[in-house]
């Protein structure tokens, strides 16, 4: 196959590309320039502080060097326009609406496995390889493959791919799904002579320099001061904008007085319309029913009453649940989960297999 390997400049995507080469594919590496002024705009002077692992000149250089070591052609493609519209602006708008988006999910859904994959297909490629830790298993009937958790549960990234419809997964190649561990991948990178073998993992939101998302949002979301209240409506503090708070957030509430029970308080809910941010003790965050938007199913929708696992955050634990409704998606969780926020993605599992996903609309 002709395979386009997305190469971020990190160790995972470099090894993924290497494994695609080893598998006998005709591989071309591509690094995505995702932010304006990134990856070599030719301007002089030291690079401003940018998050690592996305699109700094250094990352592009690391990716290029890895491609050279692998002996594959390499290009930098500018998808910044698309990334801005579909990931960055979406992120800002979601927070402005009082929701909690996951930009990595959006990026996979709308940039990597949408714009990039479509572009690759148009240019004559058959598949897109990435360094995600997740497994694709071929289907028995020759249809699209199914997505499964990675062999290494600690590194599993199937959550951020769970939004992909089957026809997109059919064009994906995930060579790291069977890796035993990140350590194994680093070891392999070192053996292959890839200089990124010891490069630190990236954790932050790639387009937020320094990782301070609240400060970043504060510059972009209109400030509308409001009140921090307890569940009885008593005013505890003022804030300068409900947008940017996240359900389950504890820090930065600036609530002067301690709670009557002396326990820390968390954001329970927020309303951008009224400006109210309601806080309370941790146990009041607990939710057992999740309602989502229109689900994306990997195959035929499971029957109502089906027992599944739900994952509500990128690194959250899987919680057993019962599928109480499919349109809209309704899940009854077997155990309470804290901090379920509208805007988050819920990924549904049957064993290791991803069966579908949806965006959380509300929880009770």
């Amino acid at each position, binding site marked *: 196959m002709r395979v386009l390997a997305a190469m971020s400049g990190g160790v995972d995507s470099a090894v993924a590309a290497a494994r695609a080469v080893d598998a006998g594919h*005709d591989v*071309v590496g591509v690094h995505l320039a995702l932010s304006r002024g990134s990856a070599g705009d030719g301007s002089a002077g030291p690079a401003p502080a940018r998050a690592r692992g996305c699109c700094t000149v250094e990352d592009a250089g690391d990716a290029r060097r890895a491609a050279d070591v692998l002996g594959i052609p390499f290009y930098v493609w500018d998808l910044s326009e698309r990334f801005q*519209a579909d990931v960055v602006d979406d992120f800002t708008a979601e927070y402005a609406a009082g929701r909690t988006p996951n930009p990595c999910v959006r990026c996979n859904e709308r940039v990597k496995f949408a714009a990039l994959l479509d572009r690759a297909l148009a240019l004559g490629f058959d598949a897109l390889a990435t360094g995600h830790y997740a497994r694709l298993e071929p289907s028995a009937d020759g249809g699209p493959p199914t997505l499964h958790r990675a062999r290494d549960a600690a590194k599993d990234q199937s959550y951020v791919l769970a939004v992909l419809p089957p026809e997109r997964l059919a064009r994906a190649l995930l060579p790291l799904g069977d890796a035993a561990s990140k350590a194994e991948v680093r070891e392999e990178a070192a053996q292959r002579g890839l200089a990124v073998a010891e490069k630190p993992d990236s954790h932050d939101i790639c387009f937020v320099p320094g990782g301070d998302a609240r400060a970043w949002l504060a510059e972009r979301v209109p400030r509308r001061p409001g009140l921090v209240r307890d569940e009885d409506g008593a005013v505890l503090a003022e804030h300068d904008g409900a947008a940017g708070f996240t359900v389950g957030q504890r820090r930065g509430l600036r609530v002067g007085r301690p709670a009557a029970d002396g326990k820390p308080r968390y954001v329970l809910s927020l309303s951008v319309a009224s400006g109210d941010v309601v806080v309370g003790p941790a146990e009041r965050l607990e939710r057992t029913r999740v309602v989502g938007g229109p689900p994306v199913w990997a195959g035929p929708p499971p029957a109502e009453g089906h027992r599944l696992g739900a994952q509500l955050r990128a690194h959250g634990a899987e919680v057993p649940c019962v599928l109480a409704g499919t349109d809209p998606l309704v899940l009854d969780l077997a155990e309470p989960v804290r901090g379920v926020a509208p805007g988050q993605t819920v990924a549904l599992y049957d064993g290791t297999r991803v069966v579908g996903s949806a965006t959380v609309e509300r929880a009770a």
Partner: protein
Amino acid sequence: MSASSPDGRPAERPARVYADHAASAPVLPEAAEAVLRALSLTGNASSAHAEGRAARRVLEESRERVAASLGAAADEVVLTSGGTEADALAVTGLYRARREQDPARRRVLVSAVEHPAVLEPARGLAAAEGAELVLLPVDERGRLRTDALAAELERHGGATALVSTMWANNETGVLQPLEEVVRLAAAHGVPVHSDAVQAPATQDVDLAASGLAALSVSGHKVGAPVGTGALLLRRGQALAPLVRGGGQERGLRSGTSAVALAAGLATALAAAARDRPAEAARLAGLRARLLAGVRAGVPDAALRGDERPGASLPGTAMLTLPGCDGDALLYLLDARDVAVSTGSACSAGALRPSHVLAAMGVPDDDARGALRVSLGRTSTAEDVDRLVAVLPEVVVAARRARAATLPTTRTPSPTPAAAGSAATAGV
């Protein structure tokens, strides 16, 4: 992509078509031989012993040949590491020297289509040394508007430190009206520098005849190794050095003389001067063949520049292909063994709309589909024919790819035919 790919492609692939001579030209065998010969010399050209004298002899003979090839005297040649260094030395050095003589002269006039090697030092002077940077406009064909320069000098001639205008643009190949620039500037006592990096292979670059105060050349655009270049500085022209040290190059560019590189530069420039008339005519013929072929295969392609005879470098053609992205075109052609470039390469390989096309009034949307074809000494009619043959299918694929990349929220682009502009010079 390995030659033995499993998808059934032939293991034997045709030789590649290299149509990116404006980025870097293949090293001339005679230049390589000159470098190798000089590498056998031991000794620092500044040393007084026999070894030093032998090295110095090659260095100075090389300097004389560079001078002879470019209408200059040997003591007007400042050897550098390349065109970028020569440009930086000229812009910064002329500014500092002119301002030293007359503190009122703070204005730096450069054309809007200059290479970053000129633009960035000029911006540096504006940011750190009180310079007032003026970007001079070009017309829709990419040629400097001398009326704007005249008006600028009329108002601020006494406050102007220097003018820098390239000989030929690196993206479009369009020749600049240097004679007029020099005439206008001279009336106000303003020195003129020209980045002539793209010119020597086909143009009569002659320092004396040009009236320029300084001009930059680069070795690797004419078949010398990368890492060679020179600033030609008119005798008597004041210039402040950038690299200070042992005082080589008459104190204007310190650093142990790179004797072997100088030999390569001299040999390549001499060959360029020798072959220039025949080469210019040959390349003009190839370019006409290219444009006719492109016109036939991709009717809405547009030449950005000046197609009139003698108005641009004969081997360079900047095309815009509506509905395409330059990086997709580059990939598709590379995969078909054709090497070209988009508007302008940059260190990380990402693409931004060309500032040259923007200055010519080309809309961003059209500038995204820019493709620079630059033919040179090794180019053949077969190269041109192969490029022309694959271009239509490449454009079709690039348009599909562009459509896939548009933001989902964006309204569709106007049809390619409607996206043309006044800057279209009718391919």
